[in-house]
């Protein structure tokens, strides 16, 4: 059984066809890329996979289950986590709280347990607390646990967002342009981090990225879309030399 199977997925916004007949199958364990010029429909694909939009046509099957009709929080609970193109951390809460709250679907206690501070409440809080600290430790963020994200440099905020996504214990991690806005030192750090996550967790990573350096050095397989349609796919070498890709990107400084 494949981890995720996207079949002829189409998304229309009024007259605009943002994604058309998109296919994708991942077996699990891969590290793949999605590229394409601005407005190609990449973020829309992630929004569909994470349940934020319902596809106009086609289907998404995750771990053998059709995810159409599910709410985003249910899709996340099934094992899909993501980061956002523009960082969307909860800026008035500590980094630690950001990581804790992302475990909301498996707190294991109810609102009444929170009033009465039952044993179930204490156990649940202890468990998510230890997972949160483990995650902070693993991501090298321990010293910033009590900082507000808005006080951290941009590169660290990206890392916190990835840590927050990881704390939902995903099987599939979607990264939407994780290198956007990073300086070159931070980009190196990000490449190392993504590779480390891929090697150390039982996880599939699917990333959107404009910076070719990042995609080419990380991804095993790349799909390129333009105007919602897939125009090329293959290994980094194949993509790099594909004339249609070069044409789609013509004038784009990134390539």
């Amino acid at each position, binding site marked *: 059984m494949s981890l995720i199977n996207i079949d002829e997925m189409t998304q229309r916004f009024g007259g605009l066809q943002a994604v058309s007949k998109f296919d994708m199958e991942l077996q699990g364990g891969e590290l793949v890329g999605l590229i394409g010029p601005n407005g190609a429909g990449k973020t829309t694909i992630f929004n569909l996979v994470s349940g*934020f939009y319902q596809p106009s046509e086609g289907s998404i099957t995750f771990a053998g289950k059709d995810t159409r009709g599910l*709410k985003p*929080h249910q899709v996340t609970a099934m094992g899909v986590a993501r980061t956002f193109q523009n960082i*969307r951390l*909860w800026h008035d809460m500590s980094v630690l709280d950001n990581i804790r*709250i992302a*475990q909301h679907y498996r707190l294991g206690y*109810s609102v009444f347990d929170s009033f009465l501070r039952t044993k179930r409440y204490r156990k649940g809080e202890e468990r998510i607390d230890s997972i949160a600290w483990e995650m902070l430790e693993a991501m090298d963020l321990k010293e910033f646990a009590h900082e507000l994200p808005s006080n951290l440099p941009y590169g660290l905020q990206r890392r916190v967002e990835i840590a927050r996504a990881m704390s939902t214990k995903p099987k599939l991690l979607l990264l939407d342009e994780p290198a956007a806005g990073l300086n070159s030192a931070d980009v190196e750090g990000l490449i190392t981090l993504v590779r480390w996550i891929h090697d150390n967790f039982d996880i599939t990573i699917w990333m959107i990225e404009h910076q070719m350096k990042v995609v080419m050095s990380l991804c095993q397989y790349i799909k390129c879309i333009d105007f919602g349609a897939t125009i090329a796919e293959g290994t980094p070498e194949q993509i790099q030399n594909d004339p249609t890709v070069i044409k789609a990107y013509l004038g784009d400084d990134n390539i």
Partner: protein
Amino acid sequence: MQKYAINIAFFVGCLLIVLAAQFGMVDLYVQSVIMFMGINIILSSSLNIVNGYMGEFSCGHAAFMCVGAYVSSVVTVVLFAQNKIFGAPILPPDMAVLFMPLAILIGGLVSAVVGILVAVPSFKTRGDYLAIITIAVNYMVISGIENLEIIGGSRGFMGMKQVVYAMSDVVNIPWMMIWTILGTVFTIWIIRRFVSSTYGKGISAICQDEIAAEIMSVNTNKMKLVAFMLSSGLAGIAGGLFAHVIGYVNPQSFNILKSTECLVMVYLGGMGSLSGSVLSAVLFTLLLEALRPLQIVKWVIIPLILVLLMQFRPEGILGNKELGDVFPRLKRYCRFK
């Protein structure tokens, strides 16, 4: 011992108030101001759940107070008092002593259920539109009760004084003072526990970025339901206490003006600050009493205070901080969980 200094001081303070009321050392006026203070604390801190912690804008809080006031009053009057419409009491009036807190809780539960009226639209609507819905619910509740002749319609409903007297006949202590203090402590205790749990912090996540909350596995609809029901349920408890302290309720005591008072207290204290809400409710009650001689002019002065507040300190007295964050040393003398 030092760790509990403030808790002990608070407990002793409450005990002194009750004793002073018992032995007639403070007159009835001062007693009623103290009870209104408690009721206002419940109102402002419960509204803070929705307007402060969750970042929605509810401006019909008095509707829930109204439901709680009427439900608990009808329950106690039918059970324990002689009434023109409902006739003789069903149970012996002395039992009111035991039943009182339960009646007030029933009022709270029913108004929590009425809170669903606002919670469900909030799944799809936000901000201004939801604010309009809350105003509509406020009007619906008041008009509904005004048209219910069996509970007095627009003339109001009374008989709760008899119930309170019946309680004093059994044991002569200031019952309503005690229940108001306990209700206030209960409210703060519950809200504090809720908003400091990871579960409850889900509503702050909704406030700061609802999309991120939903995508990060927070069931935002359920959290909204919980927040609205908790907020309206506690307002219902405030209403039940209010009705039995005054001894008489009228639908127009719970109109939009009362909701506005609740809003003023939340914004005065600071959104998302529980101690701010408590502080502002205390100040606001005192202010209302101080301005009482001015009569209707007070409704020029209070909005003016709000205008000045929004101009010069829009975040309220404490902002979104707690007293313990502003004065860290306080934490050494207080345990509050």
